[in-house]
């Protein structure tokens, strides 16, 4: 969040509410969950770290949302470093995988039923993202983000299919061994 807020300030100094609307505009429906408080908390931290400065606008009460924020040289350096970085956050598959392993080992739950429930949830998310992308009014840049979300969720569904095949086969093999 800090890096994003800094980068959004790189073009020109801005009020906090301007930053928020820039970010929401770029995120489309995915930006609806973002609240104003997060941005002001982030701006306050960035100011303490010396990465931004702020000036009170004339004639307005001194509140975070009435201040104009500007990048400091240190802030500009941090933006440059962030742009050069190639980190790529990955969805946490290990946790779900371990959930299935633990459920099967201790007979806590049927792994195939867990996969089914998870698939319904992923399908619901995919449906929502794809519906948002179908809106004719959606900005093409926002559409690109939604396409990325949809592609990832489709990959998750494929993986869940593979999980289901594996745990169904294990279940069958287990039953045969007992019989």
């Amino acid at each position: 969040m800090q890096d994003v807020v800094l980068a959004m300030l790189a073009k020109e100094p801005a009020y906090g509410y301007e930053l928020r609307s820039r970010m929401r505009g770029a995120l489309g429906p995915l930006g609806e969950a973002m609240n104003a408080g997060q941005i002001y908390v982030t701006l306050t931290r960035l100011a303490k770290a010396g990465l931004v400065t702020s000036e009170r606008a004339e004639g307005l009460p001194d509140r975070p949302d009435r201040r104009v924020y500007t990048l400091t040289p240190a802030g500009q350096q941090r933006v440059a470093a962030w742009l050069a970085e190639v980190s790529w956050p990955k969805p946490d598959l290990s946790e779900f995988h371990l959930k299935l392993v633990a459920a099967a080992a201790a007979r806590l739950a049927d792994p195939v039923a867990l996969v089914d429930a998870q698939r319904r949830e992923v399908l619901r998310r995919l449906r929502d993202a794809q519906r948002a992308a179908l809106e004719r009014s959606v900005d093409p840049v926002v559409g690109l983000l939604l396409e990325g979300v949809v592609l990832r969720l489709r990959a998750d569904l494929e993986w869940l299919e593979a999980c289901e095949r594996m745990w169904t086969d294990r279940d069958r093999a287990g039953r045969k061994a007992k019989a």
Partner: protein
Amino acid sequence: MSGSALLRARGVTRWYGRESALVRAVDEVDLDVPAGQTLAIIGPSGCGKSTLLHLLGGLQRPTDGEIWLADHRIDAMSERALARLRRDHVGFVFQSFHLMDELTAVENVELAALLAGQPPRRARRRALLLLDRVGLADRAGHLPSALSGGQRQRVAIARALSNEPQVVLADEPTGNLDSAATLEVLRLFEELRLAGQTLVVVTHDARIAAVADRVISMRDGSFVDDSRLAGTAAGAGTVRGGWR
């Protein structure tokens, strides 16, 4: 004996091969599709979904079980009666479009109506109207070879609608399309859904869930999940505009 369902299947089974090489492509499936429902059946390739669609549309016959389409029991119907029923009540959409290469877009769309004995002028009027509704009014005189994949599939959808079918059955309709063309086809299906067209789509492409009232997951010839999805999309509206 079909009750309120437009499509109804009971214990429908289709085997291929025999003895040790026996494959149960569809294994005792029960299904009711009420009029106006958009149903998506999703599953990996080889799960039996295409075979099921062919059985529901009377393109193949089941090994066992009963199928009703629009109050007619079709699993034991004569070939001739079945052909007439398909022509009058069912519109098909396929992955590879199945357009006639030597006919223009409008000629492809009007062909079914002409074969059903409609006067040529009326068939042409309706075909042009349908092409307009799928956004291809300006491509009516083009041969399929002059159209993009997405445009060809939209022509195929217009053709499927030409006899005002009670149900449209689509088999992997986005399978040969890139992402932009898939969006076009999904938008078209959403318009059909809003217009109350009964639609059954089988696909491995889960994006179809965005325009379905109900999604069934299929594995190894059987249904493993059946969820109702539509109407609860958060932060997403629907495509507006009438169809008929």
